[in-house]
């Protein structure tokens, strides 16, 4: 099983992505993101530093989290995105809304 960690601090949360964000891990991430927003932290940074692979199901989970976060007045940002993941984000133009930052610290500034 993949491990998805969450650290919350008030309205902000950092969620650690699984090594392979695929059909197996996507439902779990989706659930974690929904719970994080439900518990009052809709400003989410998803740390993809340890994630080497994202497929379409994984993108779906991120997009789902983004929608939920925005509905609660927050947003969802990405940190430490790998080349493979960046290619996928650019191809789909999703980098426009799932904004990638170099590090978790960068992503956590200026909400």
């Amino acid at each position, binding site marked *: 099983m993949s491990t998805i960690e969450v650290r919350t601090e008030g309205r902000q949360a950092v969620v650690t992505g699984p090594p392979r964000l695929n059909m197996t891990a996507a439902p779990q991430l989706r659930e974690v993101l929904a719970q994080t927003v439900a518990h009052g932290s809709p400003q989410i940074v998803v740390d993809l530093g340890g994630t080497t692979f994202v*497929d*379409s199901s994984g993108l779906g989970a991120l997009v789902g989290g983004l*929608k939920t976060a925005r509905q609660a007045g927050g947003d969802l940002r990405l940190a430490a995105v790998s080349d493979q993941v960046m290619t996928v984000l650019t*191809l789909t*133009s999703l980098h426009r809304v799932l904004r990638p930052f170099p590090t978790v610290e960068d992503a956590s500034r200026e909400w």
Partner: protein
Amino acid sequence: MTEDDRVGALQRLDVLDSPTEGRFDRVIRLAQQLFDVPVVAVNMVDARAQHTIAAVGMECDSVPRADSFCAHTVQQSSTFVVPDASLDPRFAHTALVAGDPHVRFYAGHPLHAPGGQAIGSLCLAGSRPREFSALEQRLLGDLASWVEEELVRSDERLEAEQVQRRLVPRRPLGLEGYDVAGGGAPARSVSGDFYDWHELPDGFQVVLADVMGKGLTAAILAAGLRAVLRGASRYNPLPIALQRVAASMTADLDETGSFVTMFAARLDPETGALEWVDAGHGLAVIIDATASTARQLNSEDLPIGAIDDDTWQSHHEVLAPGETLAVVSDGILDLFDEPWDAVETGRELSGVCATAQDLVDEILARAAHHVVSDDVTALVVRRNL
């Protein structure tokens, strides 16, 4: 058979990243009773590790190849038996033998992909030494072939394949002065890819779309999308048609956690004027008559269902005589390191393909070499010289 070939076959089967949904449970429990062993597992072996995709008596986990018995089994032509691992120099010091769970007995039968590559093993393990007779080896082999069949087929895939087949346009477009073709790679894992074309009151429309996700859900959403788009396109400009599609599919897409990438274009056959929208698809290209340049049709627009109340922009191009519009689906997400490689490949192929159908077939054949788990669909519109 090379190791790359073997690992490639494993990736194409798409078993590592898909839930097995209990498909192997029966055969595993049967093996456990038949051979009276505590542990039975279906293990896949890739370049670096052994991955357990179904098991009884152990966790579904991954272990490094160096600790894997099954990594040896995939090199064998028949059952691989280790009667007492603690006496076998190849295994005595490995983690699972020297430490917990102190494996002593192991028997594994190689599992093959449809192309014959040994990709994993149906294996038995126990903590007491034991012999494994020729009869038992044959039985294990029989159970392994059962697992092999299950690896490549499931009821859901069969159903989804049927849904997907119905998505293909039934008639050729019959567009004078143009050669139009589309096709999809034979469905290994069913996805929400489709292509479509139809005549409108003021021109012709071609579409290639991909509902993210796999299996029956994606295929059914694709069928719905195709119908809604056909209806909305008839009376609306292209960007508005996409908005209508988005509005009517938002609930379904939210619920399934999916979204849609789409390229759609309207063609005025007289002038070659092409109005197009791209919803996060990013994989459309126009190749000139001599196949020396390719211009990508890039947009900044998002996939349908990515955010609420989104809008899409029309762009304009002209398909000159001899030019070719080629659109492929994003099997690319699992495919090339650089999607631009695909553009270059498409350009080169366009130069050597006499017809749109040839080009579609060539693209699909190339993609079949690379694609890991998603299917590839291609659509080609070539204006005659």
